[in-house]
């Protein structure tokens, strides 16, 4: 695989994760359980949309075909998306959304820490900015997971159900393939598999405090980050997200 192709794929993976999850989180705007949470979730979504502009902007630059971040976000179809399946799943209830956020934030905080020392300065710069934001995201989502896990019997049960549902999607974050091998050899990004121990330690600490039990099975759903097979949910998300760009091609907004 050509280095530039691999870098392009890697950047799509980073940018599509934040694009899709930022979109999902933005769906909560106006209907959260309490105003303070509504405002906090919007901040998280805004940070992720901002990160998307950086990642996909750089992806377009690396690709060298003149595509902008908006072109990549609004004019690709499902099979070209490279996000992990975890982030495209529907929000479910508030607990499920926050559990997904925590499982993602924990990975992002570790990943971005490594990317700050990337040999590609453009990647390192984005990672440095994003890691400050994600440090707060993970603090907040972890706090909420603990609060709800160790809250009422009802909130505990809902959080355990959310973890049981989402945990089988966690493994995909640590899959490695040719793209990752190329990134490792160029010193641009770490091998995802190498992040797993730090990740397990982090989530175990938080989930224990939340009195939740990590499922024993390590089975993992995958296919998103390679583009091999997404869930049915992503297509529906895109029909909404891309509607105006698709219906009125060439317009300036």
């Amino acid at each position, binding site marked *: 695989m050509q280095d530039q192709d691999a870098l392009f794929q890697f950047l799509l993976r980073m940018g599509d994760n934040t*694009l899709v999850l930022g*979109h999902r989180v*933005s*769906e909560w*705007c*106006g*209907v*959260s*359980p*309490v*105003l*303070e*949470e*509504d*405002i906090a979730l*919007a*901040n998280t*979504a*805004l940070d992720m*949309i*901002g990160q*998307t*502009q950086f990642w*996909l902007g750089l992806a377009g630059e690396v690709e060298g075909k003149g595509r902008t*971040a*908006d072109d990549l*976000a*609004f004019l690709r179809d499902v099979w070209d998306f490279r996000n992990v399946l975890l982030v495209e799943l529907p929000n479910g*209830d*508030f*607990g499920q959304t926050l559990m997904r956020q925590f499982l993602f934030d924990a990975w992002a905080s570790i990943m971005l820490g490594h990317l700050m020392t990337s040999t590609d300065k453009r990647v390192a710069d984005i990672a440095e900015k994003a890691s400050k934001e994600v440090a707060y995201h993970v603090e907040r989502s972890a706090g*909420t997971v*603990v*609060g*709800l896990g*160790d*809250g*009422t019997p*009802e*909130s*505990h049960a*809902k959080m355990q159900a959310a973890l049981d549902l989402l945990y089988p999607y966690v493994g995909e974050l640590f899959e490695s393939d040719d793209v990752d091998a190329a990134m490792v050899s160029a010193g641009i990004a770490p091998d995802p598999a190498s992040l797993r121990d730090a990740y397990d330690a982090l989530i175990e600490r938080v989930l224990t405090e939340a009195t939740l039990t990590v499922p024993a099975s390590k089975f993992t759903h995958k296919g998103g980050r390679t583009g091999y097979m997404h869930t049915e949910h992503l297509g529906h998300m895109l029909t*909404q*997200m891309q*509607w*105006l*760009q698709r219906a*009125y091609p*060439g*317009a*300036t*907004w």
Partner: protein
Amino acid sequence: MYAQLVKTAGSGVKSREEMSENEQDFQNRVDADQKIEPKDWMPDDYRATLIRQIGQHAHSEIVGQLPEGNWITRAPTLERKAILLAKVQDEAGHGLYLYCAAETLGVTRDELTEELLSGRMKYSSIFNYPTLNWADIGAVGWLVDGAAIMNQVPLQRTSYGPYSRAMIRICKEESFHQRQGYDIMMKMAQGTDAQKKMAQDALNRLWYPSLMMFGPSDKDSVHSAQSLAWKIKIDTNDELRQRFVDQTVPQAKYLGLTIPDENLKWNEERGAHDYSDPNWSEFFDVIKGNGPCNTDRMNTRIKAWEDGAWVREGLMAHADKKAARKQAMTAAE
């Protein structure tokens, strides 16, 4: 205006002779532009009216999140999505500031929420209209926020301290809202034929509902004299509406859009535009619950509140457990 048809408590403006000593002191302070603070003596009717007005204003902010939130997931670019989300988030913040201001009067946010969800308290009629195309998001910022700002800028001088301070903060944050709306309108008006059509369509549908935001004509507004005397209302409905029309006409012209009013014309003698009244029977229908979106808006708020109950309870239960553990540890030392 986010607080329409707020019924002023009491029986109207009292003469000096009718006022008690406390009432006279109070009115003197208001007349001297001194702020009334939470622990100060205030007439019961002043307190009751303020709770209604600030509460209605707060409800309008959070229900107002919904028509614009309707387009967050369909915003056409990443930048537009971020701007819109930030704007709707600001509205949640404004609701929060206003609920806090109301709480200084001795009512809780939960109590006010219950009043909203049971239909006993209202929110601005404008949010019972739908947002149907992307230009509506521009028009809401341009017209609806424009109308709101017209009302809120003078309210920064309102007599009640916490309300005034909330309005100052809100106006400061609101300044970008109208501009982003107009910016969308410019893009649409200068865009493709389809975009121009969307822009005109949005103006056609939102013009009269925007005029309704200022409430019925002064001659039909009961008790507004008392609210003006208390300085919780600064200008009359018709004054604000006229100012809004005069401000908006050249802006529409710049966009090349037509305001849907055949009677709209400059009146040299008055130094102001003549314009057609909105259909007030439609306004009262909307207020009574028969607007195009009343049912949807209320159902959305009720569902969000009910679905969120376990979250609010769960986090509170955790905080209580934590406090109990801390106390037990301190006791053991």
